[in-house]
């Protein structure tokens, strides 16, 4: 009797322990999926954040949820353009790593996404690689790696990371990245069709607005103003809070000669979202319509925004170079762009460095970088304009005629300040 009872108790204990094992097993498999998709939906995102906060109040040792919460904060910052979520994200992700430092791929992926958001691309690349050593099947880690490699100027590595991500989890995040990768290689038609697939996969308003904006940009790059306008409007109709759409609409309005509307759009955008890039764009437009004082005011704001970015621990010498160019300070632009180039060999950096060198009078050097910007085959009117102007300065009139024509053929309205310059140069060359 006693022996039987012991046996029963033993069996029960075994079953219970087995049950616990199943719990552990289930939890372990969570590990793989816990990192939220790069383009997580905003509505569900808010709900997910609230749930994770609630849960962590009860279970403060749950490192998986800490990692998910940190990644969700990064997402929130991206969608709402609200950088105050970055310190929160870092706190949550570091907390996850404190609780569990070994084998915590989700937290590393989250930190990698955060590093990308802060323009710390080399750190992001290393974090993604560390995460992949732990979990070679993490699609989100490949996403972080792809973003970092693109920005660092390693297109081969970027493409293969995107391909892995597509293989592992074909969906909105993978399609959007693949589309950007194709765009870098000048394959704009394929980029557009992939972005359409991303749009089909998008459910939440913020994601749909994101895809519409990208489709609008692709149309804009090839000068299809009506198509671009339609995409931006569709995006605004879905989610008015997605601010980049305002910039797209302002650009199209200006191209169509509706300058007042364009200025109002930029004013609204920069009041709500004063980032250096948009402030410089706004200043260029103000300058093009002759409002020098207004332009200087916006450039001062851009300088302050860059100063704040630096004060918060960020480094953006590309932005600093673009600002210096807009302020007609080419020598400083060259120094800043060189600093950025020493960190990463991205096409945009090559383009800005080449143009800065040209402005500073070093046309021969500038030509090398300007060619480098288009080396992958990117079809970008801005790159082509810079290249053509440098070639013109070097007396390579044939090349200049070809590249300036190509720039204007792509998008006759590529810049309110420089499109007229390109037109004038071409007519001087006698080739229109």
């Amino acid at each position, binding site marked *: 009797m006693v022996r039987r009872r012991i046996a029963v108790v033993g069996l029960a204990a075994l079953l219970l322990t087995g049950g616990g094992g199943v719990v552990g097993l289930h939890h372990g498999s969570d590990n793989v999926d816990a990192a939220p998709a790069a383009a997580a939906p905003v509505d569900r995102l808010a709900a997910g954040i609230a749930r994770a906060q609630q849960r962590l109040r009860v279970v403060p040792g749950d490192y998986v949820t800490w990692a998910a919460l940190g990644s969700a904060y990064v997402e929130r910052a991206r969608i709402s353009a609200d950088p105050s979520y970055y310190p*929160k994200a870092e706190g949550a992700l570091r907390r996850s790593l404190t609780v*569990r430092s070994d084998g915590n791929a989700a937290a590393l992926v989250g930190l990698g996404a955060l590093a990308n958001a802060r323009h710390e691309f080399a750190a992001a690349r290393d974090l993604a690689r560390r995460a992949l050593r732990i979990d070679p099947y993490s699609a989100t880690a490949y996403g972080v790696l792809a973003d970092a490699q693109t920005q660092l100027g390693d297109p081969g590595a970027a493409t293969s990371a995107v391909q892995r991500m597509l293989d592992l989890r074909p969906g909105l995040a993978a399609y959007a990245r693949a589309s950007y990768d194709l765009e870098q290689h000048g394959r704009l038609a394929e980029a557009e069709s992939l972005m359409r697939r991303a749009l089909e996969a998008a459910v939440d308003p913020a994601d749909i607005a994101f895809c519409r904006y990208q489709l609008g940009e692709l149309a804009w790059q090839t000068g299809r103003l009506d198509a671009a306008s339609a995409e931006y409007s569709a995006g605004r109709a879905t989610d008015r809070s997605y601010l980049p759409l305002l910039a797209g609409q302002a650009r199209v309005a200006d191209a169509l000669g509706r300058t007042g509307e364009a200025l109002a759009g930029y004013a609204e955008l920069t009041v709500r979202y004063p980032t250096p890039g948009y402030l410089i764009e706004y200043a260029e437009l103000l300058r093009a319509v002759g409002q020098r004082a207004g332009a200087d005011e916006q450039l001062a704001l851009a300088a302050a925004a860059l100063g704040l970015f630096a004060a918060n621990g960020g480094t953006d010498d590309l932005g600093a170079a673009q600002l210096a160019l807009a302020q007609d300070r080419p020598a400083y632009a060259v120094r800043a762009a060189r600093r950025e180039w020493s960190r990463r060999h991205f096409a945009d950096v090559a383009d800005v460095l080449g143009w800065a060198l040209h402005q500073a009078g070093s046309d021969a050097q500038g030509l090398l970088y300007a060619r480098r910007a288009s080396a992958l085959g990117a079809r970008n009117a801005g790159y082509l304009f810079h290249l053509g102007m440098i070639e013109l300065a070097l007396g390579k009139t044939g090349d200049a005629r070809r590249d300036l024509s190509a720039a204007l053929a792509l998008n006759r309205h590529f810049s309110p300040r420089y499109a007229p310059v390109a037109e004038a140069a071409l007519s001087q060359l006698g080739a229109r």
Partner: protein
Amino acid sequence: MRRLWLGLAGLGIVGVVLALPAAPASAHPLGNFSVNQALALDLHPTRVRVAAVVDLAELPTLQERAAVAAESGVGYNARACDALAHDVAVRVNGHRLGWTVRPTGFEYRPGNAGLQTTRITCALEANTDLAVPSTVDVANGYRADRIGWRELTATGHGVHPVDPPIPARSVSDGLRTYPTDLLGSPLDQRSARFRVEPGDGIAAIGPATQANRGDPVSGWVAGADRVLERLVGGRLTPLVGLLAVVLALALGAGHAALPGHGKTVMAAYLAGRQGRPRDALVVGATVTLTHTGGVLVLGLLLTTAAGLAGEVVLGWLGIASGILVAAVGVAMLAAALRRRTPGHHHHNHDNHHGPSHDHHHGPSHDHHHSHDHSHDHHPHSAGRGRRLGLIGMGVAGGLVPSPSALVVLLGAIGLGQTAFGVLLVIAYGVGMAGTLTAAGLLLIRLRDRFSARPRRTLTRLARLAPASSAALVLCVGLGLASRAAIGLG
């Protein structure tokens, strides 16, 4: 039980906040281009006042520099307050108040990167009638499209808001220090609606701030809980593991010593049924198994199904536990009453037929009974029913999981140390069983002492015992169930 659960959850958060590295000081929770606002409503019987603070981060400050320069600080302050008053709508019983606006301050403060921030304050005031019960609506639409912290508070003077959805005091000290809790989203309180009644009364403080029970045992258990949670949260070495198991044993024992674990019921049951030491052991073993299983199942549920509130589940389990105890009480009562009524057919067989009764009844039935009769003190308590009753008592005692065991298990799962968590929960159950078994054995010992000395009154009492103890068990069961039900509601 509920209170202990809430208390533990609270302790968990405190632990998190303390364990975090200090966040870098940031003037603005929402970054350098936020526009942050706090509106503090003062409700009086005849008027409403609003003290408004607007805190512009560095970039908005810079963006408005030209406006400030154009109309001077005072003029800018006045215009900003007019714009704010235009967009802050307070309605009493649906009638929008018309504000008298008084700009009260404009100043620059040092911000990040050598830049400045702006602090604008305004006082809005309007006459109204809050001397009778009214509904107040607040809606803040000022610069609604800007990213920013938005806060609403309300206090009454001579009137009081009834269960207002907004607090009485600012959590940011009027936009001076923004909370940096990792588990809190920035405040974005744009509107509120509540009843206001005449008479003084400060807005009720939330139930979460209620303290733990003050008795020393609760305090000791809560302290040990914290130590155990910290052990689970730290790095696991063999020594720490051993220590944690010992602590879990002690905690389980201490937990069972707290009121509400059916010890009264068990005592009544053992007394009423003339239980033996073995019975106390059965109760203890059942408590361990039920408690361990219950915590594991609940842990699994809470881990997989997010959004399931632990408290609610505990409440339902409390009801189930009470009903189970009550059911055992009913069964005991029925048995006791049956025993009182004579003429039961077993008696007749035993007395009149003797050995020959085998032929009149089914062999198995009779064999079973004759077997029982020869070994048992009282002929009417069938062995199976007795054991079921004991197990019922044990299940009832272990059915409501100890919240601290649950927290430790969930914590261990979160740390990826599920097996360790299960081990600790088992240790918990064993500790509980130890206390309950010891209590049971003590009771049996005491009872035997008394019955060893034959006294007439006691003997008479003992004859009454089965019925009265059954009634007691029933009452306690109903009490437990209704207490849990009240807790749920």
